[in-house]
């Protein structure tokens, strides 16, 4: 029997959904309007996508015993790049290429996110700067870069092309859910069909031993922070597309913390080693489910953060072996 590290968060997610199913009329109902699915469940998944995307990259970073605090800021950069390129397209976007300028702009924005991640990776992998410090740099400076790109203004993007990414649907489901599914499959394949995941876990579990068996910790760190930046880039364009604007100050604000919590709640230890992508996704959805529940129940939004914190504490306690040991001893004593 395999003990999945995310069993408690999945159980808690089930409880939250069950609670809603009983007390919120029509919570589980999904209806089709204009060829598109509507319902609270769809809404939870849709709204969870930015944090869930960040959590995918964050899970790998945390597995190397690191952390990436800059992903929120990278989202702002990515959004600013995408909106900026669409509003004031440079020549190469206007002439030729035969591609949708919006698609090119968004791809470049994702690339910008990956480059930011690469920058983190170089600082951490090659210059051995501690992850908290290195990514704190970009967490702060990144918003500055985004403000430079937007000249300190909120760039609004007219037209529907830009908004289609976040607001549009494919086969009835909102596009962000498809994007998340694609990224999750890509990360799953990358980490489990190749040995990349094993090397990440080994390197996080015991870096010295990893060196002794020939695992290149530098390139590995470079890769995970770049992947984390890539995730943030994708999350950034979704967030910008959602509000049809690039907001350098508020895009992805504090979302890095949500991502870290999602990873922790999903059963990945902050000390590095084993990680669970499924757990990270469940963690992100759980967080959003709690938020949505509070909103639909009409409980004041001022208690949202406190209830979220209680949920995190509950899951972490359930995951803690020493907590179980204490309970066991209480019972036997």
């Amino acid at each position: 029997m395999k003990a999945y590290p995310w069993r408690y968060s999945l159980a808690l997610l089930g409880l939250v959904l069950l609670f809603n199913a009983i007390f919120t009329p029509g919570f589980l109902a999904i209806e089709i309007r204009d060829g598109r699915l509507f319902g609270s469940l769809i809404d939870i998944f849709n709204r969870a996508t930015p944090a869930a995307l960040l959590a995918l990259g964050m899970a790998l970073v945390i597995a190397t015993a690191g952390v990436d605090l800059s992903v929120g800021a990278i989202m702002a950069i990515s959004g600013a790049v995408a909106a900026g390129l669409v509003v004031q397209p440079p020549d190469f976007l206007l002439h030729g290429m035969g591609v949708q300028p919006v698609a090119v702009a968004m791809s470049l924005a994702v690339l910008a996110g990956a480059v930011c991640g690469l920058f983190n990776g170089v600082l951490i992998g090659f210059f051995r700067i501690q992850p908290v410090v290195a990514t704190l740099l970009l967490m702060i400076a990144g918003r500055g870069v985004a403000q430079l790109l937007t000249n300190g203004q909120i760039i609004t993007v007219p037209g529907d092309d830009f908004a289609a990414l976040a607001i549009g649907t494919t086969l009835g489901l909102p596009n962000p859910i498809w994007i998340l599914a694609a990224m999750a499959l890509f990360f799953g394949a990358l980490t489990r069909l190749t040995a990349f995941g094993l090397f990440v876990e080994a390197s996080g579990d015991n870096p010295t031993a990893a060196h002794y068996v020939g695992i290149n910790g530098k390139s590995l760190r470079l890769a995970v922070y770049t992947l984390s930046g890539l995730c943030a880039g994708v999350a950034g364009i979704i967030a910008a597309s959602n509000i049809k604007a690039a907001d350098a100050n508020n895009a992805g604000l504090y979302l890095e913390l949500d991502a870290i919590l999602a990873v922790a709640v999903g059963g990945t230890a902050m000390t590095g080693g084993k990680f669970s992508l499924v757990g990270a996704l469940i963690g992100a959805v759980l967080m959003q489910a709690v938020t949505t529940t509070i909103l639909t129940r009409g409980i004041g939004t001022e208690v949202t953060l406190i209830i979220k914190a209680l949920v995190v504490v509950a899951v972490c306690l359930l995951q803690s072996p020493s907590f179980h040991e204490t309970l066991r001893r209480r019972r036997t004593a």
Partner: protein
Amino acid sequence: MASLLRMSGIVKSFPGVKALQGVDFEVQAGQVHALMGENGAGKSTLLKVLTGVYAADAGEIEFEGAAIRPRSPQEATALGISAVYQELSLAPNLSIAENIVIGREPMGPLGIRWSAVRERARGALSRLGLELDVDRPVGSCSPAIQHLTAIARALDVDARLLVLDEPTASLDGDEVDALFEVVGRLKEQGLGIVYVTHFLDEVYRIADQVTVLRNGTLVATDTPVAMPRRALVANMIGREAPPEDAAVARSQGPQGAPLMEAQDLGKRQSVGDINFKLHSGEVLGLAGLLGSGRTETLRLLFGVDRPNSGSLHVHGGAPTLTPRRAMNLGVGMLAEERKTDGIFPNLSVRDNMMIVAQVKRGWLARLPRSAYAQADGKKEELRIATPDLDRPIAGLSGGNQQKALLARWLIAQPQVLLLDEPTRGIDVGAKFEIFGLVERLREQGMAFVLVSSELSEIVHSSTKVAILRDRRMVGDAPEITEEAIMSQIAEGGE
């Protein structure tokens, strides 16, 4: 005389394993009681029950005439039972004094009274007959001093029973003598001492009583005089021990071109003058005292450290080695420090065994499931005791971890394997198995460089022996006997 400690009928089970099946164990005041057994025999479990890490499923513990049931190491310590474990739990950046009184600092109105801290630390050390600079950070001291510091800490709580778990594993000869002097002193002070070791010599040097466990049951308990060496080994492994002096056949000479050749290889402030040729089917023993540069030599050969003088040829080429390149050239290295340089504690035993083969293939080409089945074969071959290879390796005993690490390299099929203290902290039966395996693989054409602080192991397995002294290789031993090697270590090569 009433016993200081009387454990009777101790039972402890873990999922899938009956670790202790009704074990009795008694220690008298002023007695050094050696607790012996193979890996997984139940020694550690028994000690953990005694020190409150585990609760026994059944059985009684009586200490100084009163029934006790410690529920944590703190409780056991408060009762007067202290333990010093093989893997020391000291804070390397704190001073000796701080380490000794940590958690029990004498407090004054203005916080910790540092003068009293030093005073107490000196007092605890003087019980061991030691005078040290107590302000020195523990991390900068030799392993022996670190061990004695840990013992001083254990004594600082007014212990009446002291558990020493393989205290000499990282000490060299003089340091062992110093430790034994301390043990003798404590014995005179009336402490009961439980002594766990894998070195048979030590049993006959200091133990007053020997108890042998096997597979979670008590096999024998007697005085060392009544249990001579062969009987002790037979009790531990449950079968007749192979003759200890069966040295390998060394008739065949070097065959073909050398697999590995070092010329004046060295690294500043590390080790120098390394010269040797290693052919297929040879075992080169590196003999020397602790600190003579044995491990440093292996680090150069495996590319962990970069040499800055001389040359190293592997298969005729002279590459700049990294561990990865060395592996691709068919070189492997079993590192000495199992915990810090070897295992991935939270990964499964299977992943730990397969990782080298996987790294050799590269990250893109994941080993197929069928390849992972090799781990099961190696588990049988090396008799790794675990019910499930898919559980974290941290749950295995030290000796089984070591076997899994050896399996890691064997699965990758290197041509040259560097072994740094391959038998450290493992029991007699496993030692025989490992050296039997080395012998078989050598006959099949593998080559080894063997580092061991036990001369008998070097003599038993090597086809030639190089001597290291003061971080230099001073030449080959003229003949492979303990006397010849010892005299060479002491004065040869001048």
